[in-house]
């Protein structure tokens, strides 16, 4: 969503304004913590014992164990044996789920998440601007979220390339990037790319496009240009093959991106609200020869769910968050259930540092609104999200061979009473509630001592 709005119920709202410089949870300490605990955890097997295991894909296993080896899930079930050297976490009375995957995040981006200047900014990459100093990443771990699609903003019809990351707090950004993950890009429809809610600075012309028609035209023109671009390169390569003199065309980062979408090398995640523009985009994609991997927000998806399913697009939406601008009015909490029932691969996601800390609640609400089963609700933030990111062979459920991105909860995660005890990524512990609490006094003392030095 990327542009601020007044409505108090919108992710862009100003609800509790937190001073960005006074995080409650000390991030430096976590770096230290990781240095001591996490690296040790890699070397040895880890057994989570006697938990209720929410496998997502194979039902719920009471009194079961999960064995973690080399960052992967090595065994799941009631009769798991581990070597004597294995580290054991007794999870009696607790619940284990896969880490929650958030398919709409803007966390950990340094500077603006929007390159505002052009209607198509496909040349820019979120990966270039990620920072490992955003405390929100750690807070999300504390809410069971281990992974996210960090998207470019929605200021342009075609925005920048997005990035799939795991919240490996304390590590350099290079380690946050999920290796082998698909490349992704943000498209946006409606009010934001047509600059309906903001104006350029004084003296500067309003930027094209200013209508939904214009947004469609920008997208179509970009792909037409990309075909021309590819044709120029084909012509050049053909001449070279014939040993004719030929001047190499310019390598254009924007056109390379568009070409990679056409080649199927970049997945499109499209910000959208209204049913008419959703259908427009699906038709346009069919016409131009690419797929929409996931519609984002998609608050009117329930009106065109069969069309979305037929295209094969997923839908990542909010359960009960709407009304923050004109195009977000015709929304209902049953959107998730209706899309699921009509065969749309659906997830709930955050678009918010705050919501990303308790996506389990939004998953639970889908049981209330529309009657999804417990398993269906759990899938919204796990395997469905993994499928939308095309990483379901590695993530999104507790299955042997998958990444050990696991969360230990004090209660069933669909309960509002559930709290996260431990969050691990690839078998390494990145959040541990007891450790966090234990270190706060040290943090407080260090801060006091350091401030004392400066008061002299």
């Amino acid at each position, binding site marked *: *969503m990327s*542009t*601020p*709005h*007044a409505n108090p119920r919108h*992710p*862009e*709202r*100003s609800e509790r304004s*937190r*001073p*960005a*410089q*006074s995080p409650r949870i*000390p*991030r*430096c300490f976590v770096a230290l913590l990781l240095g001591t605990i996490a690296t040790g955890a890699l070397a040895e097997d880890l057994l989570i014992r006697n938990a209720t295991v929410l496998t997502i894909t194979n039902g719920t296993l009471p009194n079961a164990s999960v064995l973690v080896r080399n960052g992967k899930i090595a065994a799941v079930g009631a009769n798991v044996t581990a070597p004597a050297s294995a580290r054991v976490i007794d999870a009696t009375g607790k619940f284990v789920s896969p880490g929650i995957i958030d398919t709409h995040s803007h966390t950990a*981006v*340094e*500077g*603006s*998440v929007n*390159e*505002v*200047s052009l209607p198509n*900014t496909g*040349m*820019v*990459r979120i990966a*270039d*601007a*990620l920072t490992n*100093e955003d*405390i*929100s990443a750690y807070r999300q771990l504390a809410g069971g979220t281990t992974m996210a699609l960090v998207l470019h903003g929605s*200021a342009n019809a075609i925005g920048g390339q997005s990035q799939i990351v795991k919240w490996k707090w304390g590590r*350099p*950004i*290079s380690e946050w990037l999920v290796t082998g993950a698909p490349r992704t890009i943000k498209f946006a429809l409606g009010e934001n790319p047509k600059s309906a*809610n*903001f*104006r*350029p*600075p*004084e003296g*500067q012309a309003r*930027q094209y496009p200013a209508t939904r028609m214009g947004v469609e035209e920008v997208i179509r023109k970009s792909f037409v240009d990309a075909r021309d671009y590819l044709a120029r390169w084909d012509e050049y390569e053909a001449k070279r093959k014939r040993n004719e*003199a030929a*001047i*190499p065309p*310019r390598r254009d*980062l924007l056109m390379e991106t568009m070409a990679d979408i056409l080649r199927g090398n970049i997945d499109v995640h499209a910000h959208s609200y209204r049913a008419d523009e959703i259908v427009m985009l699906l038709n346009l994609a069919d016409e131009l020869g690419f797929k929409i991997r996931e519609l984002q927000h998609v608050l009117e998806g329930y009106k065109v769910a069969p069309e979305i399913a037929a295209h094969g697009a997923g839908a990542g939406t909010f359960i009960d968050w709407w009304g923050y601008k004109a195009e977000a009015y015709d929304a209902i909490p049953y959107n998730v259930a209706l899309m699921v029932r009509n065969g749309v691969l659906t997830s709930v996601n955050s*678009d*918010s540092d*705050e919501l990303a800390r308790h996506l389990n609640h939004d998953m639970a609400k889908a049981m209330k609104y529309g009657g999804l089963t417990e398993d269906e609700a759990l899938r919204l933030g796990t395997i469905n999200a993994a499928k939308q990111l095309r990483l379901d062979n590695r993530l999104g459920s507790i299955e042997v061979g998958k990444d050990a991105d696991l969360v230990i909860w004090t209660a069933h995660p669909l309960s509002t009473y559930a709290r996260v005890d431990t969050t691990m990524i690839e078998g390494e512990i990145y959040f541990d509630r007891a450790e966090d609490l234990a270190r706060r006094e040290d*943090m407080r003392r*260090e801060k006091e001592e*350091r*401030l004392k030095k*400066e008061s002299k």
Partner: protein
Amino acid sequence: MRLRRLAAFLFFLSATTLHGDAPGVYAITGGTVHPVSGAPIPNGTVVIRDGLIESVGANVTVPRDATVIDATSAHVYPGLIDAQTFLGFAAAKKGDPEPAPDSLAIRNLRITDDDLDAGRSVGVTTVVTAPNTGIFSGQSVVLNLSAGPMESRVIKSPAAQHIAFRTRPTWTFPDSLMGVIAHIRQTLMDAQQYTAARTVYERNPAGLQRPAESAALEALQPALAREVPVVFVADSAEMIRRAQAIAREFNLRYVIAGARQGYQLADALQGVPVLVSVKWPAAPADKEDREDQPLRLIRDRQLAPTTPAVLAKANVEFALVSAPGKAGDFIPGIRKAMENGLSAEQALRATTLAPARMFGVDRQLGSLERGKIANVVIADRPLFAENAKVTRVFVDGREVRLPAPDKKATATAAAPIDGTWSVTVRAPQGSVSMQVTLKAEDGRLTGTFSGDRGSGEIRNGTITDSAFEFTISANTQNEAEASDWAFRGTLSGDTMNGTVATTIGNFEFSGSKSK
């Protein structure tokens, strides 16, 4: 005719000071000589002739024609090299053209006598300078702070290409960090293509479209060929890694400038020359502001001055530089690095031979050795010691006059805008409050902000009389995003007002000075 010329010449001589004379012959005797290239020499002698160093040592015979300078109980050094400055370039004002890769610093700089005095009076005789504007800031020059025509001061030009991760105003590409990186990569790719296209064309132009000329892309060729280094301005660990990723992608010879978080990167910086800025991050003046900050920030700013010592221990080649601070803060900044573990010897090397090597001028500069350029500094005690005073300075073998001490003092009077301001922005969604601490210096405005939309340092700050501008990176309301807010206002006593340009429109703001 000849007489007339002679008369003119004599007039010229009389009109110039002693500094304008032929370089002359000097013997500096009796002091502790710090050649840098070797161990200190107690009671050593340095002989200067015709702008060059003739001899250095303990048993040097003073030539008959030398003017003897008694440096007994004083210390003698090669002139310091400040290898990252904006000397001669004013802060950018709106509408100023941005520099480009083909901009040559030497063609555009304007150096005043005050600029020369500020450097020389702390022992700096040579600077590397380039504008502090633009993404491609152009090609720097290594310059002696000598008298005479600008061209005569040049040691090396171009010295390096300079690149900064600096956004343009919102709605002008690139207005985001990721856009800046795309712009840098595209420009370097264009420069590669430029040569590839011309090579094909020049081989046999018949039947081929003529590639367009581009001075900017032409100017990047020496950098792509690794003939000149590229200086990337990068302070945080992640920004340094971003610079390194670009340098690796295009196989550049590169230097990192700034390096505030260099203390975290001893491994990553192996083999990379680093220009460590000694403008260390400052704590907020207000006690409550300090207490509001997270430990991470407090720790980071306290560890920043350990960067030189950390790099020295890891055998990373580094120099100490003043930018983005000014010459007067150079020595205090170096001293702070010494309080944090850097030895005086390491500090001296980092301001002489090390920067000379990075810019390929170490055969001319950086040490007191026979045949090198006679930039020599005499101080009444070890140069970086508390209360040390530079007493005499020679540049290109000529003694330069140092400013009277009172002149320096007047330069630091507080500007009317200096201080902490309570600022309210009237956005349609309601007002947004923040505290902004500002400091004006030579037309530049620096400072910090904190409040409803996060906190951080202000950027692109300028001030002319009462008109000022600066930009902040403000969080949007959900705090997951940030975008630039460009303030433009006027100052009137203890109040200020003006407009803020944001991605969602222009809003009015007003501010009052906190007492």
